[in-house]
């Protein structure tokens, strides 16, 4: 009897986590599927086997990284250039992880997958939304990451297989991701104890937008912003 109840309880937790995660990831679905379709189209457009589109979305799971990898291969770039470009492009994810070390400390077996699947959007959802009490946080993190991964792979598969026959114009749907970040910024603003991170973001983002290449903008702005945060915090302690 007791064992049965436990099983039911775990099933409930899964159901509730999945539903919560699904609700949170709906905007990502509307962004990832059309972007995935665009990626699948690109892969087959250059004459690569459609399977590469799915393989890359499964193994890499980084929009910008995958587009860049295809572009560099087509351009015949050397391996050193590819390695350096990828390192630079993806370094922002190292900064993401820095703020997740304690949040991920008790996530158990799924921790490697959570780290593997840390895209911009997954990071935004995991740090930006509150988890309700009837489901454990690690499980919700797992479902958020898994669902986003699924949307991305599904889009890539659709784009590679039937993209060229599809006659629907999905352009602009990716604005759902911009809107998601806007909404999550407001949520962050409401709960933030200090508003300085937003000032740092405006200064750093503005500078990077003007002076950095668009491909490197996010990394450069995160570096400038971190320096601003550190000097602000350092200054406050001294005072």
């Amino acid at each position, binding site marked *: 009897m007791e064992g049965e109840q436990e099983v039911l309880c775990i099933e409930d937790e899964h159901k509730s986590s999945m539903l919560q995660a699904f609700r949170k990831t709906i905007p990502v679905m509307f962004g990832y599927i059309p972007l995935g379709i665009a990626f699948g189209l690109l892969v087959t457009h250059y004459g690569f086997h459609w399977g590469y589109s799915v393989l890359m979305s499964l193994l890499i799971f980084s929009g910008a990284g*995958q587009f860049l990898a295809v572009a560099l291969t087509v351009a015949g770039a050397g391996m050193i250039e590819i390695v350096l470009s990828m390192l630079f492009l993806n370094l922002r994810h190292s900064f993401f992880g*820095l703020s997740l070390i304690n949040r991920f400390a008790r996530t158990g077996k799924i921790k490697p997958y959570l780290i593997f699947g840390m895209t911009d959007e997954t990071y935004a959802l995991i740090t930006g939304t509150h988890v309700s009490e009837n489901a454990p946080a690690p499980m919700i993190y797992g479902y958020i990451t898994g669902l986003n991964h699924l949307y991305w792979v599904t889009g890539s598969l659709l784009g590679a297989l039937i993209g060229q026959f599809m006659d629907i114009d999905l352009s602009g749907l990716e604005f759902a991701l911009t809107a998601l970040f806007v909404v999550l910024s407001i949520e962050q603003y409401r709960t933030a104890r200090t508003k300085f991170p937003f000032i740092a973001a405006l200064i750093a*983002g503005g500078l990077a937008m003007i002076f950095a290449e668009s491909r490197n903008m996010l990394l450069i702005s995160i570096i400038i912003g971190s320096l601003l945060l550190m000097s602000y915090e350092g200054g406050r302690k001294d005072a």
Partner: protein
Amino acid sequence: MLDDDLLLVVLVTALITAFTRALPFLFFSNRRQPKYLRVIERDFPPMIMLLLVLYCLRDVAWDIAPFGLTELLCIFIVAGLHIWKNNALLSIFVGTILYMYLIRSEVLINILI
């Protein structure tokens, strides 16, 4: 022929991407955490969230009509709606549908010129 090149690139890209994501966890897992990590934990998510909004605007052509007004207007509407109604999905859908309409129509350009 190109397929083999791509396979190698795929594997290298997958390894580097996973490495950059895992790096902070490898580095800090067995050490005492420095004090600044608490600042990072508290202040990074809000900063990065707003930076991601700005990052979405990286390829806007500010010097060509409608001068980025489509993006700015839609962001303004998403933000206003969210502050007013506090319903994330509603704000995102209204903003996205408006954006999809505006990039297909000449409304903003006609108003401006």
